[in-house]
């Protein structure tokens, strides 16, 4: 299982924005390896959520842990069968453990697009 989390500049705290998070953390539950990649959508003019979701798909994520997520991004993630969980607090490491212990709940409410207006 490969878990994706949008993270802040410090690369450990979960970012409140999915689409415009500066980095994404990818954790491989089988090997215990963590990778942090720059989010190519962070400075997109528009459609950042869509582009960030494509990034998560291309990075072969199975699970996403996020504070919130837009409808367009959710459409992409769901089309790729990625499970979306709601972050509990902003500590990335704690959420990784909580996710593997099945303590996180699925995110079911998705906000509408900001169309480039934050």
């Amino acid at each position: 299982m490969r878990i994706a989390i949008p993270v802040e500049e410090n690369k450990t705290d979960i970012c409140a924005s999915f689409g415009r998070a500066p980095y994404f953390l990818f954790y491989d539950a089988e090997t215990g390896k963590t990778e942090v990649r720059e989010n190519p959508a962070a400075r997109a003019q528009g459609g950042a959520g869509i582009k960030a979701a494509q990034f998560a798909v291309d990075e072969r994520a199975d699970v996403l842990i996020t504070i919130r997520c837009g409808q367009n991004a959710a459409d992409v993630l769901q089309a790729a069968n990625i499970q979306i969980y709601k972050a509990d607090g902003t500590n990335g490491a704690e959420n990784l453990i909580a996710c593997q212990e099945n303590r996180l709940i699925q995110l079911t409410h998705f906000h509408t697009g900001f169309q480039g207006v934050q």
Partner: protein
Amino acid sequence: MKIAVLSGKGGVGKTMVAVNLAAIAQQVAYVDCDVEEPNGRLFLKPEGVARESVCTLLPEFDASKCTGCRRCVEFCRFNALVYIKEKPLVFPEVCHACGGCQLACPEGAVCEKERPVGCVERGQHGSVRVITGILNAGEASGVPVIKAALRAGDAHGGLEIIDCPPGSACSVMESVASADYCLLVAEPTAFGFHNFQMVYELASLLGKPCGVVINKMDAPYDPLERFCETNGLPILLRIPYSRQLARLAANGEIIAEKDMEYAGQFNRLLEKIGGVRR
């Protein structure tokens, strides 16, 4: 001649000024480009209305030709395309119908089909041609409908009054691009002045001659007065904050058709801009 009526923020009185100018000018096309909430028609009450649909183009993908090279996805600067489960997927509300994905595709797997985004209504208020652009709810961009409304205005020929959307974004730029004159409606408040400066910046960047109407004025607002003086912006009309005018507007009536004093004032305004026909 095309006169664009615009203001930085909404609720300043663009439509009130635009419909009054149209009612005074008579042989004129009034074009409502405020396509998200076109309300000039509430005042002009056009008769014999005909409606024509406005479509935009949306890419369609031929799965049998697509090789998954993703050039279309990489090309789209609006991020309206994704590549999921070995096929491209488009988000219609995000797509700007630029046609770039079709050009970028080396396999000829992309074609475009029409998608309705709104309509243009044409009607008549006496000798005023009333053209209204109406955007479907939920659409992200009003530009295709604005373009269609302006084309309908041009087809009428002669004098045109363009009622612009509020703000100073793409839709406003589209509405004023072909105008010969920008009439800026201002409100004497800090908020109104802030947005007025933004819309003035846009109009001057586009090299348009500008004039100002101050609406809802109970006292001069110094920063606005000074700004107009410094920038050589003529203040062509000052309309007071009055219960009588508010009542007429709230009843959907055109002030210049009800009040001779204001009919004269709007006539002089039109004359000063150079759009007068009488």
